[in-house]
């Protein structure tokens, strides 16, 4: 399998604080990787690093063999990395449908003059966008809600919508930031199926940050464990589960 994302020895330093240090991770096509660690370990920082919100103080990040360090987030998304957010960030003034349509903008060819003239090429692209958005919403059972205000949806639907929206950017790598947060066990089961389904249907690699161990252990092929900004373990769910360093990081030193 081809290597998709390569993070090499990255450090993110804010003033005196090292949020992440010496982090390595390789993600190949179609892999489902989990990133876990206690609160404040730096998991979302890693996401922000990959998506270009933060710039690494040192180290390298390569996506599809090209460095993405220093690129603005929208360019990194165009390269094929999409994400969801820990605190859902939908566009409140747009409908469900338009939230997804907006995410199709980056693939558009037409310019302002087309938007103003409304010629055939504009109409064609608008149809395509509508079709893409509708199909995605259909797959994820949100079509019937398409005209609703996006933030008016029930919590679980909002999370699903965020994933749909990210998929509209046609990513090769999808980053999910705590998608199971606030869900009950049934919803989590559903989510796990959804993630596996998404991954297979769209041929994606997925990097998942999650606190719920059942979800992570249940679907991830490989898991990296982060504590205080450094990777303390990496391996299959079984390996990681049994690793004493991981147990200590989560439960604390029992002798203390």
């Amino acid at each position: 399998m081809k290597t998709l994302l390569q993070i090499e020895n990255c450090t993110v330093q804010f003033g005196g604080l090292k949020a992440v240090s010496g982090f390595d991770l390789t993600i190949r096509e179609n892999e489902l990787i989990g990133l876990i660690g206690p609160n404040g370990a730096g998991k979302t920082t890693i996401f922000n690093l990959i998506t270009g919100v933060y710039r690494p103080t040192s180290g390298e990040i390569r996506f599809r063999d090209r460095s993405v360090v220093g690129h603005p987030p929208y360019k990194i998304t165009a390269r094929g990395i999409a994400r969801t957010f820990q605190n859902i960030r939908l566009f409140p003034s747009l409908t469900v449908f338009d939230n997804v349509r907006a995410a199709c903008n980056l693939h558009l060819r037409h310019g302002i003059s087309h938007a103003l003239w409304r010629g055939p090429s504009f109409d064609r692209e608008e149809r395509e966008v509508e079709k893409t958005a509708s199909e995605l919403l259909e797959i994820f059972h949100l079509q019937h809600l398409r005209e609703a205000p996006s933030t008016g949806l029930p919590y679980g639907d909002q999370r699903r919508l965020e994933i749909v929206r990210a998929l509209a950017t046609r990513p090769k790598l999808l980053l999910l930031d705590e998608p199971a947060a606030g869900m009950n066990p049934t919803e989590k089961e559903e989510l796990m199926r959804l993630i596996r389904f998404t991954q297979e249907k769209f041929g994606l690699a997925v990097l998942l940050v999650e606190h719920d161990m059942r979800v992570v252990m249940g679907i991830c092929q490989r898991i990296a464990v982060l504590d205080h900004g450094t990777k303390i373990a990496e391996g299959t769910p079984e390996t990681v589960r049994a690793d004493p360093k991981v147990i200590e990081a989560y439960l604390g030193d029992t002798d203390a």
Partner: protein
Amino acid sequence: MKHFGPKTWLLIAILASFVISLFEDRINAYFFDIIITIGINIILGVGLNLVTGYAGQFSLGHAGFMAVGAYISAAITVFLGEGFAAALGGGSFGGTTLYLAALVAGGLGAGLVGLLVGVPSLRLKGDYLAIVTLGFGEIIRVVIQNTEVIGGPRGFSLPDRTTTFFWTYLSAAVCVYVVVLLVNSTYGRGFCTVADDEIAAEAMGINTTKYKVIAFVVAAFFAGIAGGLYAHFKMYIHPEGFNFLKSVDIVVIVILGGMGNTPGVIAAAVLLTILPEGLRSVARWEALPEWLQQVAANRMILYSLLLIILMLSRPQGLFTRRSRFRKKKP
């Protein structure tokens, strides 16, 4: 409404403007002044609404773009007027062509300045952006004030009143057309994402700076056209007329109309143009006590009070319903 596409509406508006303009000589000069001013304020308000209402960017320097358009178009008319018109064989055709060329040049000049100001400034957010745009607006004014060849602080005079009802409302119709079309397209959705959540927008592949600059430049272009129309109507322009207060006036139109509510902004433009005139008549009511007349005469006191009260009680504007949510028509 569904039967008529936007292009049809534009044509209807242009036709209506033409028909009405045939009667413009019959209209009383005082009312005519107000009518033209309404048209100009519509262009200013609808343009700024694109930036502030849809794309969510504060701009307190819009009068600066109007000034650029006013002075460029005025300069062309005054300095190039004779040669140009003669080259076109004189007569009304030459005059009209020159006028239109001056207007468009003013708009393009303003658009260019909008680009120059926008690209560095639009990286800033909220209050900071407001202050920087204010700063640029003032700098433009100060530069004009110190440029002798166009009159400096004494102002600049134009020879003829070439702005007519038709040109004013044609421009207004085109402006509304452009804004409505942009808003109801992929660009419109883009603007909304920028206004809602820039970080999420960037994460969805939207180049937020590009969208902000587009809104900014389009608005600046139309402000420039408005400036040109104004210059060729009043036949006299001076830098103080394009100061911070003028920028505030335009912002108030946008807020009163409801941010992101183009019809509301048009209505607000009409209302805010008529209001000072109304106040002026109130000030002359013999029935009111002296001090009340005085206060009414100082329309700025009422204006600012109205503004404060409006913000406290109905910040979504006069014409928008309470909901934060704006429905987008396909």
